[in-house]
């Protein structure tokens, strides 16, 4: 896959670092890199699809909310950056997505039940619940330097292991 010139990669033995402009046109390339890394780490293909969805959702949130055009960051930096660090570790894949935009009130956010949203025909509000459904661990932190990091962890299950079926769609309270 040919990468856009504006995406920078740092490949280290223990991790892959992706730096990309916070723009929607780079999401496909980011997804491709994440999927390739997950496959090489031994993540089963069904779980790769879930990791892809969660990372795409996280990066989309950064672009839309942290770096949205009406925010200070967009005015200060024409192309603010998203940094995605992917670390295969024994038994799990750790992905950290960092931005320097507007902080998200993670502790105060209570996602609505996806079933309720669906039955009401809502078009949005699914993202955080989807990340919880697709990943085994989801957490968010902000540091004093203005960096916001969403941490996603996928346990690498042996091929053939089955995840519980859909139904309990309410994610754990952050």
């Amino acid at each position, binding site marked *: 896959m040919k990468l856009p010139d504006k995406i920078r990669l740092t490949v280290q033995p223990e991790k892959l670092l992706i730096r990309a402009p916070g723009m929607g046109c780079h999401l496909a390339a980011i997804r491709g890199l994440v999927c390739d890394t997950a496959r090489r780490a031994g993540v089963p293909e069904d779980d790769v699809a879930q990791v892809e969805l969660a990372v795409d959702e996280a990066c*989309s949130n950064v672009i839309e909310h942290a770096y949205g055009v009406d925010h200070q960051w967009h005015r200060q930096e024409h192309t603010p950056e998203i940094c995605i660090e992917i670390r295969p570790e024994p038994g799990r894949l750790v992905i950290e997505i960092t931005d320097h935009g507007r902080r998200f009130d993670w502790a105060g956010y209570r996602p609505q039940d996806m079933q309720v949203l*669906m039955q009401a025909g809502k078009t949005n509000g699914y993202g955080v619940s989807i990340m919880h459904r697709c990943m085994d661990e989801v957490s968010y932190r902000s540091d004093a330097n203005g960096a916001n990091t969403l941490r996603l962890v996928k346990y690498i299950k042996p091929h053939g292991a089955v995840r519980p079926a859909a139904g309990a769609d309410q994610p754990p309270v952050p």
Partner: protein
Amino acid sequence: MKEVRIDLETRGAVDVIRLTGSLDMYSLPQLVAQVQTLFAQGHYCVVVDCRNLEYIGSAGLGAFIGFSTQSREHHGDFKLLSVPERIFKIITLLGFTKVLRLYTSEQEALDGFACG
């Protein structure tokens, strides 16, 4: 850079949208514009052929929910045809099959519309 290609066909009273590529926050507005144009013309019977859809994000899934609800409110429907297995598993995992109607046969998808 991947985008989505949208091909539109009319099959009687039903509009068939054939998608090729990926639906993410970057490409989704193209589909939203297309569907809103159909709805504005009073065309609420829609089949979306997904056989060449490579990826759909949460915004796309949410849009499908909204289109389904909106079309049914106008005695139509918004049906998904030939959803690839990779995407089908995601839709099932998330429970979206409780609202979205999925078909594997184009004829079955075309049948049963109230606006036919």
